[in-house]
């Protein structure tokens, strides 16, 4: 069965291959989520880095949203968005490692969840360069948040490897969700999910302001 949500030069995925991708990516995440809340005190190695983007709901939603938005836009965006994110995130991580202070990091991360959620909610077919620019700006702040913690890790190399791999796995899950939800009810489900993500982002952004 071919899910024909992307025609012409875009992506053609069979339902079976989508399930394989989604289950594979979830399998990467599953063993780690069970021990996700054990992380107190010093940061460890690979496992600690791997769990970091998963236990942080703001990070998790933003990265899922990148995958879903890319899948929703279709064509090349399915992979250009999730590929750009970790690359620019690494640049943000380097800024964090070097100790350069970035302002409004938490607010920017919350805004990224809000904006990406809105983009999915309104099924915004942004021009590719605008979408990539948005992703790049948000990725810097996400990478910075990880990078600041990196030097404190017991094994920084394994920690960075872990969080980059987790980020990629979350993107894959996001793409899987986006592709699976694109067909039923003409994509309304993914738009609804986008709305929920945007509301969560708004909650995170308003958190420091509200009493």
């Amino acid at each position, binding site marked *: 069965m071919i899910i024909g949500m992307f025609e012409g030069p875009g992506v053609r995925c069979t339902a079976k291959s989508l399930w394989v991708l989604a289950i594979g990516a979830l399998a990467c995440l599953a063993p780690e989520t069970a021990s996700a809340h054990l992380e107190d005190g010093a940061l460890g190695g690979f496992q600690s880095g791997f769990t970091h983007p998963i236990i942080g709901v703001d990070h998790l939603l933003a990265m899922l949203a990148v995958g879903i938005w890319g899948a929703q836009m279709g064509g090349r965006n399915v992979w250009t968005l999730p590929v750009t994110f970790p690359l620019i995130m690494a640049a943000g991580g380097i800024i964090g490692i*070097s*100790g350069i202070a970035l302002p409004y990091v938490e607010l920017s991360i919350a805004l990224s969840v809000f904006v990406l959620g809105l983009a999915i909610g309104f099924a915004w077919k942004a021009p590719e360069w605008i979408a990539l620019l948005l992703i790049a700006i948000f990725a810097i702040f996400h990478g910075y948040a990880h990078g600041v913690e990196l030097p404190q890790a017991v094994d920084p190399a394994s920690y960075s490897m872990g969080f980059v791999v987790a980020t990629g796995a979350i993107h894959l899950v996001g793409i899987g969700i986006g592709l699976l939800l694109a067909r039923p009810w003409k994509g309304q489900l993914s738009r609804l999910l986008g709305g929920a993500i945007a509301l969560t982002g708004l909650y995170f952004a308003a958190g420091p302001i509200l009493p």
Partner: protein
Amino acid sequence: MTRSRRGLYAVYIIAAIIVCSLAAGLWLSVPEDIADYVNNGLMLPVFRYGLLFALIAYGVILSGERNPVLLVANFAVFASTLWFGLQRAEYIVVTYESFVDLIIRFPVVTTAMGMIAGIALLFPVRARRWLLPIVSACYGLGLGLFVLLESPLDYYYDWFAFSGGLSGMAVIIASIALANGVQQICTRSSFAIAERIFGSWLIAASLLLAALAIAPQLIRPT
């Protein structure tokens, strides 16, 4: 089953038989007192995440090559540069150490391997065919260097090097077979998405490792 696919399966089976025979030969001939060094060599790619991911990536890149002759040729380039690396890596290390601090040498090798594989994975499969010989040569040399830098003592180096190189090859062959298995289930386009995301992981992780390794002075005191 097409002719090229039959040829590819034959290549995988022959490669697996060779690696298994070498491993069996190694186990039968290893003296008891140095069995631990052989074990450490065999487990080397398993406990070094950077190396493991880099080797898996190389396997994924090789799996895109549908021509059995070119696949074998590229693997031969890898094997010969690996042999050269294991034999001559000492000279490279001496030169290398005059430039770079000893402490940072381990991540630099895997960083370079990860970066090369990551960039290659971002290219379309057809373009990768031209990059493969370079990637294979870099990987052989890189694995050779890595094994040398991780080896315990000069006396046991040969055993450690042989088992390390062998397990590296086993990881690559397993990755090729696994990637081909996944490609049977997935469409080409969905596999290409996963490949590119994997490539971007590797580049991002390599950039961070490079930042941590090459510029340790950037890290703030904690």
